[in-house]
């Protein structure tokens, strides 16, 4: 970030551009974001305190500033709230456990195949997100290879199934958001100067100590970025829960979706959206503070 700022300073000093040009460059894009991101969010805040028109049609609401909507909405979907955050946390931790060694191997142990392996990491995500999720349904299903193998090894009983379960939902989420974890991890690992690792070796630390005291702390920005980029979409996701789950694994996204489309209860959907967004923003802020990397934004 400091580098970027110094670049910016340098650029503006040698070209002397100050006046209106940057604002002209910013205007169209920021106007778009303001109109189609900021305004809708403000509008949503308004919707969240509305109540149904008495004697009106379904979907007709009037502003009454009823903040109790939030409490009602929360009480009605407490379970889904908890599930969203538990599943998202599990998926994030699993993605970290899978991605870290993978990113490490690509950054330090892949030699001339580095670029090829990097392409291979992203490649699976070129097939459609939905098709991948449906593929997991087949893989974990009765006719897939996982269930018969586990049954033959007596790891699961003959009547246990894997689809339509919390396990399947978390598996799908972990898989679908994996590149968001792997790429930032790789970027921060790749930036580590190999000489720092050599220095640690020269100072008689073994491989494990080097990892714990040098490599891992230096990769922290990647860990933080990857965790956030995985957790945020995972917490709001409802596709995995809809395809791989059962009625007892619904997440907050499923509730918002059905409130909006099936029940046409806009105020509750809006209140839930706001609570989800607020919860995520609070967690993200705490996490960034705690891990001590403000460079992200």
């Amino acid at each position, binding site marked *: 970030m400091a580098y970027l700022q110094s670049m910016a300073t340098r650029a503006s000093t040698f070209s002397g551009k100050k006046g209106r040009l940057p604002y002209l460059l910013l205007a169209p894009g920021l106007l778009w974001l303001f109109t189609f991101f900021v305004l809708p969010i403000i*509008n949503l805040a308004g919707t969240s305190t509305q109540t149904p028109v008495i004697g009106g049609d379904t979907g007709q609401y009037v502003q009454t500033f009823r903040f109790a909507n939030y409490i009602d909405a929360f009480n009605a979907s407490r379970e889904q709230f908890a599930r969203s955050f538990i599943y998202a946390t599990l998926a994030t931790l699993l993605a970290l456990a899978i991605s870290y060694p993978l990113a490490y191997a690509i950054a330090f142990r892949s030699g001339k195949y580095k670029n090829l392996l990097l392409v291979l990491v992203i490649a699976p995500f070129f097939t459609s997100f939905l098709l991948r999720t449906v593929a997991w349904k*087949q893989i974990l299903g009765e006719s897939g290879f996982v269930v018969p193998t586990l049954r033959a090894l007596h790891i699961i009983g003959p009547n246990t199934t894997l689809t339509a379960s919390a396990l399947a939902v978390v598996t799908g989420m972990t898989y679908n958001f994996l590149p968001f974890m792997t790429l930032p991890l790789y970027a921060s690992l790749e930036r580590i100067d190999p000489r720092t690792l050599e220095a640690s070796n020269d100072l008689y630390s073994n491989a494990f100590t080097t990892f714990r005291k040098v490599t891992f702390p230096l990769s922290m920005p990647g860990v933080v970025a990857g965790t956030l980029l995985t957790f945020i979409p995972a917490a709001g996701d409802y596709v995995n829960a809809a395809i791989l789950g059962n009625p007892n694994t619904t997440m907050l996204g499923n509730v918002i979706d059905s409130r909006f489309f099936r029940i046409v209860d806009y105020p509750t959907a*809006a209140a839930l959206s706001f609570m989800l967004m607020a919860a995520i923003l609070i967690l993200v802020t705490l996490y960034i503070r705690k891990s001590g990397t403000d460079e992200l934004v």
Partner: protein
Amino acid sequence: MNQAPIPTLPFGRRVSRWFGRNLIRIYAVFGFAYLFVPVIYTFAFSFNDAGKSNLTWRGFTFNNWKNPCGAPDVCSALGNSIKIGLLATITATILGTLIAFALGRHRFRGRSATNLLIFLPMATPEVVLGASLLAMFLAFRINPGFWPTVIAHVMFCISFVVVTVKARIASLDPRLEQAAMDLYANERETFRRVTLPLVMPGIAGAALLAFSLSFDDFIITNFNSGTLVTFPKFVYVSAARGIPAQANVIGSSMFFLALFIVIAGQLVNRKKVR
């Protein structure tokens, strides 16, 4: 250095040492296997003689590949996705690149507010983006459909374009531009003949990213598209009844096409570096 005869270790020790050294590589092999299992499944089932439901294997056939539009609505959904993707990509890439240049090359008031406005859409869950935009469209009596979807896609792609292009601008060697100025190029020439060509790979990467985000998006699209069916929506809707194998053909083709573009891009880059 290795002149002295190396004492041979007992077999067990050698095996465990080999594992110790290659543990991370073995792990990586498993990691890649995990990554590719669903892709292989999708590809394999594109050859399934499926009939209506493509959930179980029923025999090998090339028919799906010969006739990818054979299932009803697959190709119109694909066409909608491509149209929306292209429009959203072009718009978002232009708007995002302009912002990236402003952030990477200029000093101005309101810089951190701009950064925040770029960051927030990426930190907002898709359900919230989709629901809020639809609520506003409905409030203004705009019916969801093709254009609202394009607008929504541009909105969530801009931030990713800005981040990608900004990173490329930040990684440029400032001496190249200084050299151009030293050689009497004026500001405009320096930009056109040095800066822009150097940033171009970043812009191309950002455009590819934007297209794949748009093409693959389901949640925001589902909120804002009304009755319009895109490819992900088609898969979602038919997931309950069984997805026609033609969808797997299209998914696999997208995979190979994207792989081809990325590898070709890398080869072109490598040639340029030489």
